[in-house]
């Protein structure tokens, strides 16, 4: 039997599947109500905190601006909030840094696809990277990847986790990607090199996302730039 046939016949569960318990829906309703209450509570709480901070800062702002035009102060409330928020301090050498590559040139970019079977996509994706720099900000679990030399042409945001020698990014529109990292400190700056491990995500620039990630993230080492940041 071929794999094709086995896949068509062998993936289904053996026998009759268990019946669906309607009480699961009732539990889902309870969860949804609890989540709703948490959201409302968190939103009200965040608004109250923001208002308190704004009111506390009001006299200071007026004093600082006493030599100029009278200031109009509007206490602000956040326009959005998250259901949960956790702070996870990071300790890996690549954390809390703004990393930057040199300007992308064709040969190293295309060579990053050697041996992958994806080289045919290289020229198409490199057309978007030609002469640009790759900026990677990683801080407090939040990551931003930007492409541009003088101005940002493309940008993605997401989260990251460092586990040993690997860093896994979970991008909002690039999917999930994992790299091995190497970092070292020189007299001038810090350097970081990434090696592609895996990626799963929607196509980018008409090619599998792996093509873009390999070309953008692994063609050149990253260096730190003090005070840099998009």
């Amino acid at each position: 039997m071929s794999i094709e046939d086995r896949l068509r016949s062998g993936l289904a569960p053996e026998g009759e599947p268990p019946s669906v318990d309607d009480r699961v829906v009732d539990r889902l309703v309870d969860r949804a109500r609890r989540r709703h209450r948490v959201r409302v509570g968190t939103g009200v709480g965040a608004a109250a905190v923001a208002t308190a901070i704004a009111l506390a800062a009001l006299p200071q702002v007026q004093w600082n601006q006493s030599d100029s035009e009278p200031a109009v102060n509007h206490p602000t409330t956040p326009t959005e909030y998250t259901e949960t928020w956790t702070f996870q301090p990071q300790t890996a050498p690549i954390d809390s840094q703004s990393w930057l590559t040199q300007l992308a040139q064709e040969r190293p970019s295309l060579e990053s696809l050697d041996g992958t079977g994806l080289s045919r996509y290289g020229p198409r994706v490199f057309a978007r990277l030609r002469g640009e720099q790759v900026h990677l900000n990683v801080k407090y679990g939040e990551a931003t990847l930007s492409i541009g030399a003088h101005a940002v042409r493309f940008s993605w945001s997401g989260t990251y986790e460092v586990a040993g020698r690997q860093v896994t990014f979970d991008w909002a529109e690039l999917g999930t990607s994992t790299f091995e990292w190497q970092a070292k400190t020189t007299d001038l700056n810090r350097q970081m090199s990434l090696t592609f491990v895996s990626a799963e995500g929607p196509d980018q620039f008409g090619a599998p996302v792996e093509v873009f990630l390999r070309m953008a993230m692994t063609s050149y080492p990253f260096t730190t730039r003090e005070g840099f940041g998009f």
Partner: protein
Amino acid sequence: VQATDEYRWLFRQEYRSVVWTVNVVLSDYARSEEVAQDAFLRLLEKWDKVSRYDRPGAWVRRVAIRMAVRADRREQVRRRRERTATAGRDAGADMAEVVPRDAALMDAIRQLPAKQRAAVALHYLEDRPVQEVADLLDCAPATVSVHLHRARQRLAETLGEGVESHVD
């Protein structure tokens, strides 16, 4: 928050099939039920909007697949961190009650990347055409064909079978 009759009907129609599809991705039936329920929870919260879509079932399936792929990624990261603690764990230990017809095939599928597993589940288990799988996975049909091609090749190597494709 209320579960309407239409929502309950959709739940009864789709739940088991979503769980089993997710199970092909996660190889953990209990975890697959959690993921499926999280997806149906999202559906419940957005029911006013999603119920007006042509196919609310496709919406919840898409959400479940995305959650499963992300859960698989987080699980891999966690296992890398806790390699010692998880050494020897049987990924299929939670599947005692519901077993696949071809257990060897499922074992081999566990070795595939999550997106390939998702494509295999949607195409072969749910018998969806490549275009529909691409819609559910938010990628191009060509990408789905590549996922399926690579999955078949890898499975053939693992299981020592021939590859016959009628897909691409």
